[in-house]
């Protein structure tokens, strides 16, 4: 009895072993998958270990100096010394500064009033920060500056002022993170579904053998590519409607921009994402590989695009990678349109980047996809 149980057990082990070794052997022969096993943790670790930085540094901000005094310049250099902000722009009027914030050129602007010297004496707040509050992490970093001590060196009595700055938080005065997350989520969800759908769509035809028939017909590569993209544009528009509609109803996310601008921006991003998916599908040989490549693109789109962490907090190299991802450009656009009421005219660099990516991507995919089997 006992001997039988043992031999049944060892037979079972042998069968498990057979499957284990078969699986390992297949894995080592599937080069791309094997590469993924090594490359995914390696690259992701290096990328995110260095890039993810929740401490915001050197935020680009602007200044409106109406006082034109030496002391005001001392204030600016004190602020620069905190390394939180970096004064990159100068504006003539507060109105210009507000416009720049809406367009997304700067996250905030410091307005130094004409009566700056008097305020310093009176122990009132000496200047005002105009802050884009939509990104709460950026907002918090600037809010921390509110009580930064400042003295001109000429004061008669010790400084007892409560706040150094007055703060005007635009777009998200209650500092709710949902306001920032929901529009960003549009970019993430679209990246995920659009890239996955298109990358799988072409590979599936290849795997099922449909492609071998299709390429013996008069249909052109570019026609296959475009035909594969178009249906998913509608899928993407449905998803955006769900996210922003529910975001508005449930999380009270404002939609400050014009709807036509939003739809056009979304359209540009969907096209770019679908193109990215097509490129993946010309590289991947199986649906599994297409899925892996999609995840490989999705993770930086989540972590580096500004969706989770402020773009400005990342080192240069990470910012370059982020710039290569369509999601980064779209997150900038969608937040600007939805939260700050910006128009596409304000967002031309990002818009053109997405359009350019789509055009070159489709050309690249169509030329990579030969109507040949060799």
């Amino acid at each position, binding site marked *: 009895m006992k001997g039988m149980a043992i031999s049944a057990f060892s037979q079972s082990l042998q069968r498990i072993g057979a499957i284990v070794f078969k699986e390992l052997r297949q894995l080592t022969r599937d080069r791309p998958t094997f590469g993924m096993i090594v490359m995914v943790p390696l690259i992701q670790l290096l990328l995110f270990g260095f890039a993810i930085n929740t401490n915001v540094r050197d935020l680009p901000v602007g200044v409106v100096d109406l006082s034109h005094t030496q002391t005001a310049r001392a204030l600016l250099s004190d602020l620069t010394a905190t390394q939180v902000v970096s004064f990159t722009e100068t504006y003539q009027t507060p109105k210009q500064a507000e416009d720049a914030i809406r367009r997304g050129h700067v996250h905030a602007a410091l307005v130094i009033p004409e009566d700056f010297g008097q305020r310093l004496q009176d122990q009132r707040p000496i200047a005002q920060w105009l802050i884009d509050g939509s990104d709460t992490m950026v907002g918090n970093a600037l809010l921390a500056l509110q009580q930064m001590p400042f003295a001109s060196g000429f004061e008669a009595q010790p400084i007892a002022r409560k706040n150094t700055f007055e703060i005007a938080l635009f777009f998200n005065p209650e500092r709710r993170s949902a306001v920032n997350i929901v529009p960003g989520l549009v970019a993430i969800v679209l990246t995920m579904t659009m890239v996955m759908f298109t990358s799988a769509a072409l590979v599936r035809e290849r795997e099922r*053998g449909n492609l*071998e028939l299709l390429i*013996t*017909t*008069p249909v052109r590569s570019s026609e296959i590519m475009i035909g594969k993209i178009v249906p998913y544009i509608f899928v993407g528009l449905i998803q955006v409607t769900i996210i922003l509609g529910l975001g508005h109803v449930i999380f009270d996310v404002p939609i400050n921009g014009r709807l036509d601008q939003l739809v056009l921006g979304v359209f540009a991003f969907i096209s770019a994402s679908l193109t990215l998916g097509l490129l993946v599908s010309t590289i991947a040989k199986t649906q599994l590989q297409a899925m892996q490549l999609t995840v490989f693109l999705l993770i930086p789109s989540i972590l580096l695009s500004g969706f989770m962490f402020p773009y400005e907090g990342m080192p240069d190299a990470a910012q370059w990678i982020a710039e290569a991802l369509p999601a980064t450009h779209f997150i900038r656009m969608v937040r600007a349109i939805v939260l700050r009421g910006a128009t596409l005219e304000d967002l031309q660099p990002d818009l053109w980047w997405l359009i350019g990516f789509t055009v070159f991507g489709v050309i690249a995919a169509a030329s990579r996809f030969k*109507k*040949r*089997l*060799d």
Partner: protein
Amino acid sequence: MTDPVTEWAIESIGMTRRFGDFVAVDKLDLHIPHKTIYGFLGPNGCGKSTSMRLITGLLTPSAGSIRVLGMEIPAQAELLRRRLGYMTQKFSLYDDLTVQENLRFMAQIYNLESRSVKQLIDSQLSRYQLNERNTRLAGALSGGQRQRLALAAATLHKPELLILDEPTSAVDPENRRDFWEKLFDLCDDGTTILVSTHYMDEAERCHGLAIMEGGVKRADGSPAQLMRELGAKVVEIDGENLRLLKQQLSELPEVVSTAQQGTHLRVLITEAIKDPENWLRTIHPALVANRQIHSVRPSLEDVFVHCTGSNAAGEGARQ
């Protein structure tokens, strides 16, 4: 329809395709006349599929020239597409579309005139007995039905040339016979058909035939001609212990091949022996004592066995 100045529907000279060090098709010369059914017969991996892909322009030849319907391939492959119907070895229509949807899709891909498409599809459905299945998903069809659907789709645009890569490998004998009837109908209508197979009975139905092995054409001609010109004599020997006899005969240099067929042994003996029965009786009496020996007509299988495998060594491409 067909270009009168081009004598051959398909003509290749020295067509060669290498994959790395492996030579899949080696200096293949083909001359396939219009309006005939021409077969590639050979074991798996002999270069049948590769040759077909070279002819359709799906693969670029490493060397040699190919002309199909008067067009240079692969340079003019795109032009050929509209005049070519191609059926892949694996069912390659969409499993998740219905019979009718698949046909309509192909009609649109070929830009067939939309007014006549409905009528055209209906006539294909009845021609290929798919009338009652037209709303079924292609994935739910039987092997024979799928094959008929694939043929209906491949002939929708009335191609002058039809290329079929092992079209009946997943089909039962009755459906296979049926399928061939359809091919003869198409041929009668003026279509040139190139078909690959590893079934002897199918090969025997072709007007012309190339027997291929290892990327090389071992024989070329009509089945009747190939059987007539077989360079060997065939005898059938019966009796007991055929396995042992097979082994003993195989060792004789004059014996080309032996194969057991039920209760008798089919033996190919080289042409040098004028009278095989007499030769066996006089030179190897011990082997054939108490056995009946009949000289029989060669079959296509004999031809195939004779010009492939180790038997073909040194003979090269016979013509």
